[in-house]
């Protein structure tokens, strides 16, 4: 069953058009990866889905309802949680408060609560009374993921969760993905790291210059096809 669908999604920043008719869909329980280079429109796509950017009403549908023009706080209440690019923890809040505020607009019982998030990322329990921004980059990313999970979302958007982190730390973060999938949430993972993206995704979309240039399951996509979709065909 289709959980989320975008149809002919366009997005603009003033006069600049960032997305040119993007069509993607996510099925219930599925994890999809969106790969592409800087400026391909991946983050714009995430911001359009979660309501920070608003669009034509039926450009985005979630669980059958048109949410393209619904503001972010109401999209979140419907069950789409976002791990924003650059983590965006609240500096005035402790680690635990950062997690708790994830339930502000949507407090539904489910797999995820403080205990299960601390079980997923034990280091956060040790540091729960520190200010969120006093943690290392990888730990901050764990807080950002935990914060999004606290609302027990039906769809979790992860925007560049490996950005700026050391490979060993990225490995720790991605080790959590199978458990998140097992909890039943659908996921969209935005990545520049193609290998990481292919390893966790059921299906992959590749974007370039505001358009989807390739899609398919990781097994069916050849390296050359991804290369062409990522960088454009060599002339």
């Amino acid at each position, binding site marked *: 069953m289709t959980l989320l669908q975008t149809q002919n999604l366009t997005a603009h920043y003033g006069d600049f058009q960032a997305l040119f008719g993007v069509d993607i869909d996510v099925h219930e329980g599925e994890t999809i990866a969106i790969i592409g280079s800087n400026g391909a429109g991946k983050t714009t796509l995430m911001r359009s889905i*979660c*309501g*920070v950017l608003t669009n034509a009403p039926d450009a985005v549908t979630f669980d059958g309802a048109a949410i393209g023009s619904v*503001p*972010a*706080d109401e999209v*979140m*209440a419907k069950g789409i*949680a*976002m791990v*924003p690019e650059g983590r*965006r923890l*609240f*500096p*005035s*809040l402790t680690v635990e*408060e950062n997690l*708790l*505020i*994830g339930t*502000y*607009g*949507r407090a539904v019982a489910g797999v995820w609560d403080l205990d299960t998030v601390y079980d997923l990322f034990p280091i956060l329990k040790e540091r729960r009374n520190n200010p969120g921004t006093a943690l290392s980059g990888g730990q901050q990313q764990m807080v950002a993921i935990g*914060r999004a999970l606290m*609302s027990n979302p039906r769809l979790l958007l992860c925007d560049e969760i490996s950005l700026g982190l050391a490979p060993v730390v990225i490995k720790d973060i991605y080790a959590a993905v199978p458990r998140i999938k097992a909890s039943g949430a659908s996921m969209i993972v935005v990545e520049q790291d193609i290998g990481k993206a292919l390893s966790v995704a059921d299906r992959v979309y590749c974007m370039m210059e505001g358009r989807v240039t390739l899609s398919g399951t990781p097994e069916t996509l050849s390296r050359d096809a991804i290369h062409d979709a990522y960088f454009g065909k060599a002339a």
Partner: protein
Amino acid sequence: MIWVNTIVQGILLGGLYALFAAGLSLVFGIMRLVNLAHGDLIVLGAYLILVIVTLLGLHPLLAVLIAAPAMFVLGWVLQKYMLNRVLGDDILPPLLVTFGLSIALQNALLEGFSADSQRLPTGALASASLDIGGLSVGVLPLLTFASAVLVVLVLNRIFYTTSLGRAFRATSDDAVTASLMGIKPANIFAVATGIAMIIVTIAALYLGMRSNFDPNIGPARLIYAFEAVIIGGLGSLWGTLLGGIIIGLAQTIGAAINPEWQILSGHIAFLVVLIFRPRGLFPRATD
């Protein structure tokens, strides 16, 4: 002994200034909005209490229980339908709008209540005093100071132990990311201004019981409030209380030396603090 008395009276006077300032501090801390009509809203609150006292024959201390919820609603509506429209990256539009509001309030009060100065009927409380270790301390100043401490305690409790407080701090940090948590910044701001108006009503109560007021005294209250907020450090409520006390002390000590120096001493104390601590005594770490 005279000096001890002066210092005690100064600290207690600081409680009144802290009450003037706490609402301003709260609103600035959450939405970076400097409300230039703050002083006039205090005066409006005093007139509202006066009307309730006159119509219902209540003591001001009881009338404030009716006035405070009404002022909360006024603050909520004011923020939601007027101030939220001008909040943004540019700090000038909110300044202009609240400046206009200040003038409009003064003139509306002048029209409704004339320029005659008024006072809340306080009865025996106005002159009641306690003998503490040889010092004669007024009950009303003591009540004022206790209310200021209580207001700061309650606000801090809301800020640091409730879900609403987390939302206040998160919205203040980053409104876009707060909206990803399901928070509607516009509503959070409206609630914050509503709470600030409750504090304004408490400040109005003591203003009206302790001194005369007329429609034009708002801007001077704003100055004291503003100085207390700046001395304490923007966004720190305990700092605001201390800022109020410093101004109260400076004024009382100045007046003890020469009565002409009372107001000036408060302003000088403000400038001295700014010279040595430009960001105030307890600036928030994350500004």
